[in-house]
């Protein structure tokens, strides 16, 4: 594993595109949080409610999740580069097994998700300390954990698409289509109680808008019965789907001629 990480690091270290993406992300999250703070919600929610512990974690995770697509594009770019430069093929020739190829690359997905979780925690905890008198840092931190599970799911999906399609532009388009339209098409075709268990739906419901859940659900479902998966079940399902997706990627690479 150390070998695989060292190989991936060698590729990333001097890859400007990647570091620009990371810098943009790192600027975006606090900016979004700061931007949110500019609005005056005082008629319904106090700043302390939004930016204080424990809610700050859920709020920041919810905000950060808007950047998931952006980071998925990073994953797609990094993965498709290997096909474009034929370096995956070269690694195989040089002596890596198919398993090492796929898990080496997937380790990036994991690292990126972990980085995002840590970064989200840092940004949220700093904001929380400003708006809370108590330094109850770990209160509400589970939201970040759930967010980690979500990014793992999304990024794995992006990774699988990149592996199957090999072309970054195509993969990005398909990912956007899936995210934009699966809710509309599948959501309309399938009854809500089945659709609620679909991977993208499960992933996206892990970081809901943190306030007025019931009201929003009621509006969205127009009084119909609400199918709600608990956070625990949602997380477990997410992890299960992530495993399936990664195994799918491995299966594709194992069977394919490179």
């Amino acid at each position: 594993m150390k070998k695989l990480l060292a190989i991936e690091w060698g590729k990333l270290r001097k890859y400007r595109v990647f570091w620009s993406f990371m810098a943009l992300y790192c600027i975006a999250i606090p900016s979004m949080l700061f931007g949110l703070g500019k609005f005056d919600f005082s008629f319904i929610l106090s700043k302390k409610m939004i930016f204080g512990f424990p809610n700050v974690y859920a709020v920041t995770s919810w905000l950060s999740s808007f950047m998931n697509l952006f980071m998925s594009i990073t994953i797609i770019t990094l993965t498709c580069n290997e096909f474009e430069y034929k370096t995956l093929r070269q690694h195989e020739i040089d002596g890596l097994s198919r398993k090492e190829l796929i898990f080496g690359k997937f380790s990036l997905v994991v690292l990126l998700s972990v980085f995002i979780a840590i970064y989200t925690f840092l940004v949220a905890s700093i904001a929380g300390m400003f708006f809370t008198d108590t330094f109850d840092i770990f209160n509400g931190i589970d939201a970040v954990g759930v967010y980690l599970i979500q990014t793992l799911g999304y990024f794995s999906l992006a990774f699988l698409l990149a592996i199957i399609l090999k072309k970054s532009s195509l993969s990005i388009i398909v990912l956007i289509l899936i995210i934009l339209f699966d809710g509309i098409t599948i959501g309309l075709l399938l009854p809500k109680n089945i659709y609620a268990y679909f991977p993208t739906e499960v992933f996206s419901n892990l970081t809901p808008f943190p306030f007025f859940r019931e009201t929003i659900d009621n509006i969205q479902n127009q009084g119909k019965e609400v199918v709600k998966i608990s956070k625990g079940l949602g997380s477990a399902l997410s992890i299960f789907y992530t495993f399936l997706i990664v195994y799918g990627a491995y299966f594709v690479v194992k069977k394919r001629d490179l």
Partner: protein
Amino acid sequence: MNATILEISNLEKHYKNVKALKGISFKVNQGEVFGILGPNGSGKTTTLGILLGVLHADHGDFSWFENGQDDNNRLRIGALLETPNFYPYLSAKDNLKIVARIKEIKTPEIAIDEVLKTVNLYEQRDFKFKTFSLGMRQRLAIASALLNNPEVLVLDEPTNGLDPMGIAEIRSLIRQISKAGKTIIIASHILDEIEKVCTHVAILRKGELLKYGSLEEILSNDPIVAIGAENQEALQQKLNEISGLELLKTRPDGAILVRLSENYSATEINRLFFEKGIVLNYLQPIHQSLEESFIEIVNQ
């Protein structure tokens, strides 16, 4: 008898509608410079692709170092297959560092400097790969193949994109490596390239192995002479009447290439024609080149 480096048996591969390999078997022993020869599309790269793990064979088996198809076998091989594949945004050196990690090389810095010097890219070691010319890319790929001081070097069209100087350098490099007791497998469609460096040859055509053996075996056919006379037509006519002589082809300069199935000397040939009333004005024994053997084998 030297150790077996590679053994393949009955390898088959088809792409959609095309049968690229129709059951190829051969064996490579330690220390051989083994040339895989064939026109474009004969299955050379497909064969190497299977041996190097990037293609799945539909049928058949192969084994490196009598150790089957273990992925770790490839850590003992240095290979260049088709195009040089590197990260364009990394320098030559940084690209080789990645290869060094894959190959688990103990002292990468030393190994990298050494191979870069070998292929004359040391001065350009910090240049990005994307700035390299075709020839430089090919040389970097060869450097990469040499990086782990491999027991076996697999080269697919190694002189692709190189200028005559570069070709000569690669040839002398191959000889040098071969002298050190290493095994080299080269695929090429350039006969001259194979003939000048190989000890053993396998000839492929349309996915079939036509012939394989040592270079002498491939070349050791009946002797050939080129003959000429004032009256070419009469010469050809009388040629058919003499047993043990077989017309091969007429050369552009008008001389006729004749294969001798009986061991005639030059004097005897001259006399045979003289008896038929033909005076030869040209008679030269021909050392058969691989090219002639190759064309003969492929045309059979």
